């Protein structure tokens, strides 16, 4: 696909490397230097080079040969991009879901343009799409997208292109891994698409990885929304495959049955959502806009294909109790990431920190209680006056992949400055969602969170810093088992996955337009391997770990379920090396005056029951 680019890359790279090694990188890494802590300290010493490129040694040395996965090269201040790309690639189930999103998108787009060719009454269709689209006001672009896509005058929205480029990139990386190529890849196409779509990423400046991450997630969400609105307002897209498949006599009954089944499931789901609202209505006096949005968002989520909603979106609950009438009002908000406040260096006490369970630190930082009193009283709508009130911020649901953003960058009048205070990064974190939070002390919560990715920020300021990523080395092979199209089985209610599975059945026979899927998607596309159904998308864009490298590295002592010996990857632009858990722990441990600090933490939800069963 974009292999050409790939071949050009090394030239680029050598030029820039030599430039930078002359000007900035006075000190070179010795390839023998494998002690991570030593390396870390050196990184700190040489803050000038943090932002830039590695020395040639690094490239040509053994490390490069050993890299177990494909790498991305720095195109000048793009470590923020690379760190986010690595992270998403190794976020559990992300690739699998993205693949199906792109697949469905191509299918729907293909069919839409076909419909357009067939029918002359497209205008009415567009109206139907554009009219009740509740998203359009919030995002602004989505309604535009609908028009542009339906009319085919402008081929695709910028948002959609970014999502597609992201998938292309991961496909390319997969292919590179297949070929066991060690050349770093330049994510030029994606970067262009991102800059095209959002002006703030223009120019060769260092950017906030957090901002990019949220931007990419938002892009994907918008693409998901587009897809679900298309399916919602164009039932033709679903009906058509039925009619074509009915001509295919053999399949007819199977399809019919599934259609009915999906209908009843849909009804059930919509009923559930209505019930939920009534419950809300009776307990919640204050229905403000954000809540309305949240409700409508939740509904949309249920109809749609939004894997992002399942995996990355959580719901915060702001609960306010007037101390006079004791009426409780609740407001719900969706979030992608949880900001974790960090205390300033002055208040820091390492012995104190080490005596507290890290889970408690995060829970106390995220779940907050506040008393509204004195000059900051709460205007109670029932009492129609200002009263004292208790306000708590809780998490009704936490997503499957929880992103913690450590608030290391404080904006003050003198500009943005970084807080380097140490905060422990536990490998496992207790869940602090509302139901887990209220459990008795000795009761084990049904799930917990396990660290899967870290984006570290090195350096004193945002502009001069450098980002590197630590990811757990896994291709999340398990998530491709028993593919229920686009959602990970472990974390979903049966109805949801079945529903989407059924919808897929409709889509399947018409999978002509889809070049990725090559007709192998869906149920029929599952190959039977070792008695397990494996989704074919694993051959498209999944992570392909170089087994030899890994096994050599661990002296063949690793077993998949042995958590103690999890293997980690340190992804620092084009150089990728493996680490064992103890090494990572050492890196994450406390070092005085260190400016290498974890910035974004990704935790994946682990269901204790499921874990037990799978064992």
């Amino acid at each position, binding site marked *: 696909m974009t292999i050409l680019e790939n071949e050009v890359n090394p030239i680029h790279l050598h030029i820039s490397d030599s430039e930078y090694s002359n000007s900035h990188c006075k000190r070179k890494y010795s390839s023998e230097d494998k002690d991570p802590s030593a390396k870390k300290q050196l990184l700190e010493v040489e803050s000038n080079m943090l932002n830039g490129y590695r020395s040639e040694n690094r490239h040509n040395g053994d490390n490069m040969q050993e890299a177990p996965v494909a790498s991305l090269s720095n195109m000048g201040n793009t470590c923020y991009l690379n760190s986010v790309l690595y992270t998403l690639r190794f976020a559990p189930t992300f690739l699998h879901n993205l693949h199906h999103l792109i697949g469905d998108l191509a299918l729907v787009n293909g069919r839409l343009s076909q419909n357009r060719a067939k029918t002359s009454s497209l205008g009415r269709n567009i109206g139907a799409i554009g009219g009740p689209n509740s998203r359009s006001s919030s995002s602004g672009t989505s309604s535009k997208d609908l028009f542009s896509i339906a009319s085919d005058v402008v081929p695709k929205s910028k948002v959609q292109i970014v999502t597609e480029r992201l998938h292309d990139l991961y496909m390319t990386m997969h292919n590179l891994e297949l070929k066991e190529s060690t050349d770093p890849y330049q994510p030029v196409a994606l970067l262009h698409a991102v800059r095209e779509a959002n002006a703030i990423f223009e120019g060769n400046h260092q950017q906030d990885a957090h901002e990019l991450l949220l931007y990419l997630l938002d892009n994907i969400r918008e693409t998901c929304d587009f897809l679900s609105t298309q399916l919602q307002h164009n039932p033709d897209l679903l009906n058509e495959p039925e009619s074509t498949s009915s001509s295919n006599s053999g399949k007819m009954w199977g399809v019919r049955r599934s259609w009915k089944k999906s209908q009843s499931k849909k009804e059930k789901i919509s009923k559930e959502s209505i019930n939920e609202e009534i419950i809300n209505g009776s307990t919640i006096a204050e229905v403000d806009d954000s809540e309305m949005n949240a409700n409508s968002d939740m509904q949309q989520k249920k109809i749609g294909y939004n894997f992002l909603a399942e995996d990355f979106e959580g719901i915060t609950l702001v609960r306010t109790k007037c101390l006079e009438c004791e009426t409780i009002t609740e407001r719900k908000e969706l979030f992608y990431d949880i900001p974790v406040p960090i205390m300033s260096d002055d208040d820091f006490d390492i012995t104190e920190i080490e005596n507290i369970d890290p889970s408690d630190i995060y829970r106390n930082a995220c779940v907050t209680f506040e008393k509204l*009193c004195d*000059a900051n009283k709460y205007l109670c709508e029932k*009492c129609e*006056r200002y009263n*004292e009130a208790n306000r708590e911020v809780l998490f009704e649901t936490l997503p499957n992949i929880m992103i913690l953003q450590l608030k290391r960058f404080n904006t003050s009048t003198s500009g943005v400055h970084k807080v380097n205070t140490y905060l422990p990064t536990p490998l496992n974190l207790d869940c602090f969602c509302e139901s887990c939070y209220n459990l008795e002390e000795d009761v084990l919560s049904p799930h917990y969170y396990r660290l899967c990715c870290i984006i570290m920020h090195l350096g004193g300021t945002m502009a001069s810093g450098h980002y590197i990523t630590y990811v757990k080395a896994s291709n999340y092979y398990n998530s491709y088992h028993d593919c229920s199209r686009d959602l990970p089985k472990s974390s979903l209610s049966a109805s949801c996955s079945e529903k989407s599975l059924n919808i897929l059945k409709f889509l399947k026979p018409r999978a002509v337009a889809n070049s990725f899927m090559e007709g192998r998607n869906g149920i029929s596309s599952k190959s039977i391997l070792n008695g397990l159904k494996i989704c074919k998308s694993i051959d498209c864009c999944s992570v392909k770990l170089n087994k030899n490298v890994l096994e050599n590295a661990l002296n063949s002592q690793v077993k998949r379920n042995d958590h103690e010996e999890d293997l980690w990857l340190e992804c620092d632009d084009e150089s990728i090396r493996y680490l064992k858990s103890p090494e990572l722990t050492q890196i994450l441990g406390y070092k005085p005056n260190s400016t290498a600090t974890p910035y974004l933490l990704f935790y994946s939800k682990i269901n204790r029951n499921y874990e037990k069963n799978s064992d």
Partner: protein
Amino acid sequence: MRIMANLKAGSQNNRKKVQVSMVICDPEEKRHRSGVNALQIDPLLDRLYSAGRDSIIRVFEHERYFHGMEHHTDWVNDIVLCCSGRNLISASSDTTVKVWNAHKGFCMSTLRTHRDYVKALAYAKDREQVASAGLDKSIYLWDINTLTALTASNNTVTTSSLMGSKESIYSLAMNPSGSIIVSGSTEKALRFWDPRTCAKLFKLKGHSDNVKALVVNRDGTQCLSGSSDGTIKLWSLGGQRCLQTMRVHSDSVWALLATENFNYVISGGRDNKVIMTELKNPQNSRVICIEQAPILKLCFTADQQAVWVSTSDSNIRCWKLPTDKHFDENLPVSDKPISLIPGGAAIREAVVLNDKRHILTKDASEHVALYDVLQAKKVEDIGVANFQEEIKKRFKMIHIPNWFNVDLKTGMLTIHLGQDEVDCFSAWVSARDAGIKDTPEPDSKVNYGKLLLQALLEHWRMVQTEADTKNHFSVPKHTPLILSEIGGRTLYRVPVGEAGGETESALLNETVPGWVTAIVEDNCNGKFIKIQFYLQPHSSVPVHLLKQDRIKKPERLVANDFIQCKKVAEHILEKLLGDGNASSPGVDGDSSPPTSNGYGVDHIELSCNEQVRYFFSFIHIVEIPKRFMKTLELNHYKKYTSFENDTRILIS
């Protein structure tokens, strides 16, 4: 504009922002408008005192309204009857504690020591001592004999404060001999002091939420507490431990009452129930009544055979208590109250109509009414009606800026005039629109804020205005005028009609802010800055419609800083469109005949800086708000010597 400048200068001298407010109410509000927070009984005179959230303490003699005691400006949270019924002490959310002559019903003195809402009082009968506590975390002890001896000249009082509370106090209790005092707070613990020495004694933990009701027994050995966690706890103070936890309510416990011998506890809660429980045997409990709203206070009748129950709606009912016989033989209790003091309906919703003068309200009984702010009275009782429909019905095509805020915390309309976000002098209207007939000039303008302030302070200093500018509006003499710090404490409250009294007048001289004095004494109607502007035809207006000589050179126009759109429209018709015969299009809707080229002038659209400001037909009169002109002036006037109002006309 000159007036505004004056006002700004005046407010400079008075940096502490003062807000002028008034309450629109009946001459005598005989019924409680909102919840009743506290009750006290005077057995000698058979009087019931009730403290209302509508800021009025009412006295009922033989269950009939006797008189109201008005001086607070916010919820009255607690009252205590002392000195054998001669005096009453009240605590209010206006942060004051007031001492009243209970028999005659006037306020003797006001204690302003608290810095936040005063929530609770406690009374030691044997020592004639009262304690007050509130959200400012502090408790003050007062000697009642000192308080009642206070006069205007002898106005200092010493208080002892009980320190140590870490959170807002919601309940307080003291035994009759004044040997122990207990507070309940959001700290969830009970704290004890010895009022004689002011020494902190101990605290008792056990509740898991706010403690809202407390009772101490006569000798100070036992204590009952009711909490928002839904439980009632009986504590032994000697043993410093909880003896009994009773969970008879399904929701928060807000009111407690114990029989003299501490055999039974009567409790009321958020679950609307009043329950009587035997302390020795908590399983033995009887529901006395189920009210229609959460129970706020309980009070024994003189014979202790029944209880008065007050709730967060305005009715006060009396319910018979079961006797020992009822308990022993499990006899049914009557489910009818033995008497009722009916309350009125609180205003729950208020919408300021867009003439910014009338307010449409809906009360707790769904009745809709129309109020006129300038006259401070109800002008129409609409009865049960569709609120939204009524609002729509009264919509007028007019824009007037907001000049006051409405507050419903007392269940009555409180109008606040301020100077910050909502400037009370921002509303200028033509005298004719304000309903003033005998204006000297046909086009004279009036300012709503000024009119109201003049009416409110009419009796103060007896400012005699000249005949031609005499007050066009007056407010009822009973209307309470309130001066307060913005968002904070009340400085002074006086009925409008009494403002002329000697002491009242003196106090007003101290508290009325300079900006008010300036406006009230200024008798001129205001001079307006003349603004130059141009009228230009909009690009969409066909050229042939316009008079040719006007196209070449736009005429410079001069007008007051706000003018009626009608005038502009007249001008356009006459001068620009050459439709000279339509001299008064506002009066005659059909007076815009189709011009020779077939265009009918139905609408004129005025736009300023590309934005369409007003779109109207001739029948409606719209005024360009001063505020809008002011911003234009700010933006352009200083930069350019000539002010350009890029007004265009559009013909459709």
